[in-house]
């Protein structure tokens, strides 16, 4: 077992928690909390949320292995999540908590020590450029 900073545990936990809130079963159990709550059973968005939630859980579990590819995938999902949150803000339905968690996750994963950690624990073999070419 490789040592992981607390931040990685927290990020993995938060990503899974956020993903769970997107599942229909969560919306039915805790009405009023999930963003899925209020969307009709027949709406295609429920399926999209479902797929999105599963993808996020898988990415979070993969991130736990300190894979560089998982790091890149998580950053991509965080970016998409932030885009969705900004669209919701534009239509006056902001979810500030999700937005704050995603923003903090982005900055944490991009921090120099965390990047170095994922560079060191290369489990994929294939190189992924985590460092900007200009700053190299």
């Amino acid at each position, binding site marked *: 077992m490789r040592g992981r900073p607390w931040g990685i545990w927290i990020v993995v936990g938060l990503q899974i928690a956020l993903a769970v809130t997107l599942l229909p079963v969560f919306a039915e159990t805790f009405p009023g909390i999930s963003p899925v709550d209020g969307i009709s059973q027949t709406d295609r968005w429920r399926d999209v949320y479902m797929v999105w939630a599963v993808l996020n859980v898988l990415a979070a579990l993969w991130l736990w292995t300190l894979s560089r590819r998982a790091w890149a995938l998580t*950053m991509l999902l965080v970016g998409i999540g*932030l885009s969705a949150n*900004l669209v919701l803000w534009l239509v006056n339905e902001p979810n500030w908590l999700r937005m704050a968690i995603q*923003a903090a996750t*982005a*900055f944490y994963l*991009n*921090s120099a020590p965390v990047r170095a950690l994922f560079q060191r624990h290369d489990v994929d073999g294939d190189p992924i450029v985590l460092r900007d070419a200009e*700053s190299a």
Partner: protein
Amino acid sequence: MANATDISRNRPLDAPAATGTVQTAADVALLQKYEPIVRYNHAELFFPTGVESYLAECDLLMGKTERDQEVVVPHGKVTPEVLGNYIAEPGKSLYLRLVQKPLNGIELARWQVTGDRPRFHAPGRLARVGLFGRLVDAGFNVSLLLRGTVPGGTAAAAQIKYAAAREDDPRYVYYGRVIRRGDWISLHYMYFYFMNDYRSTFHGVNDHEADWEQVFIYIEDAPDGPAPVWIAAAAHDYIGDQLRRRWDDPTLIREGDHPVVFAGGGSHATYFEQGEYMTSAPISALRWATGLLDAGRAFWVNSLRQPDPGDLAATLERNLSASFVDYAHGDGATVGPGHDGDWSPILISDADAWVDGYRGLFGLDTHDRFGGERSPAGPKYGRAGQQRMTWHDPLGFAGLDKADPPFQWPTALAERESELNKDAMDIDAKIGHLTDTLPGLALEVQALAADGGMASLYKQRAAALSAGELDLRGLRAQAAALQDQIGAVRRERAQIDAGDLGDPRAHLTRPHRPVPQEQVRQGIVVEFWSAVSAAVLLLVTAALVWFSVLPWWGALVVAMAGYVFIESALRQRLTQLMLRISLVLAFVSVVLIAWNYHTELVVAGVVGLALFLLVDNVREVVSR
């Protein structure tokens, strides 16, 4: 190698020059001893030549504007003597014209496909700059339609004339001067070309008839014989320290006593290193942002612990610059001792009428308001008729007016040390005086304080005591600084006495270096995309607006996003792009959160501070 008859073509040796020096055969020998070897691009069309053969092909015009110009000396009648005696009428200016009739389209096409001239090929320069640079490049090309420019077909016609002139006079000529000032001897080499065809042959910034380029070699006139110390080369409009290299600079190539320099393709700008040079036009209006960007970088790296993005101001300037490439490949003809051709030196000075008397342009005056497509004036004058700095102050041109020759450095340092020692002794004397007088003054103030009836006097003397104390502190600080200065001067002197002149590149803060090879070569797909991207972006934006798919700003955003995506994909930087977008979105989100919860954030900050103070102070009390 040229002989004395070549040299005396313009003016007899030993004739006095107006600069106050007498130029002798020894000066000529000095010029020849260190004459540079110039390496040209393989596709170069023009090489240094004498002005006589050029003038023989020119007519002389005078006028106020492009429209009212008239030929005052016809083609075939222009000679150095005629030129030197012609003065422009009030309100008018003079200029030579090499090409009276540029080639038309058919003639140009025929010229392009015939002959054994080498063709120029180079990797696409647009692939090396960002979108802004490509758009500026497009705007630059459009501006050529609106500005005064050298007509198409001029370079080809000039090349035909030059080729014919070379049949009669195949010499490679440089014009030379030897200027003595103090213990410096400046060797001034001037190269005259029929034409600068940088734009039409090498995809560069400008074309103009006639071109003067210059190299200087600075020699110390030491007691044990003259020795070269510096070389400076003119490149575009740069001046100052960055232009010169020390003789022992490891990047300076030398063959014996001859330095090797590289001429830019068509521009003939001179470079010390072989390669390709970006001639960026920095956007000076953005300089104000440098401090802001540096502060942002420090916050990003130190406070947020994010990776260092590098010099943001430099990156911004690079991305927002219109860039052209000066190709100093050095893979063509080489002129200089032992190479494809030897130099034929010709001495010039103020005594030469065409040098001193003619203040007009040496080629076509296009009246280009940006100046780039206007011909230069002669070797002595600028376009406005003022003397060139290279002519009246060759030392200052390369930032050497503040420097002594190295053989004088030990003496100069000894003198400086002596001056500093004298200053130190003066300060020591003042310190001694104050240390003698202040204790007595302190006791006097103490005595005055004891008597309330002398309060006024007490205040005066106490003030004098305070002032004396301050003076003493200041003098001691000055004495300490002087000791540091003296120590530094002594160390420098010891180093020089040991033969070490220090880092030869210490004066270079922004040396002009060639672009690294890995940035020069791009894939064919990237080069093709670079060539068409700006046009595609504009077409897509126009189509989206025309067909009412999106408002103009939306169309611009979509087109830009598409451009960024394709550019990143082609350069295999999609991961970086995704990362950057995520970070930008995170930053925007943080700003929105802070804006929405600013009251709560302020309250939380105040509560946090209060708790910190509480815990810290209570801990201090408890730990007693």
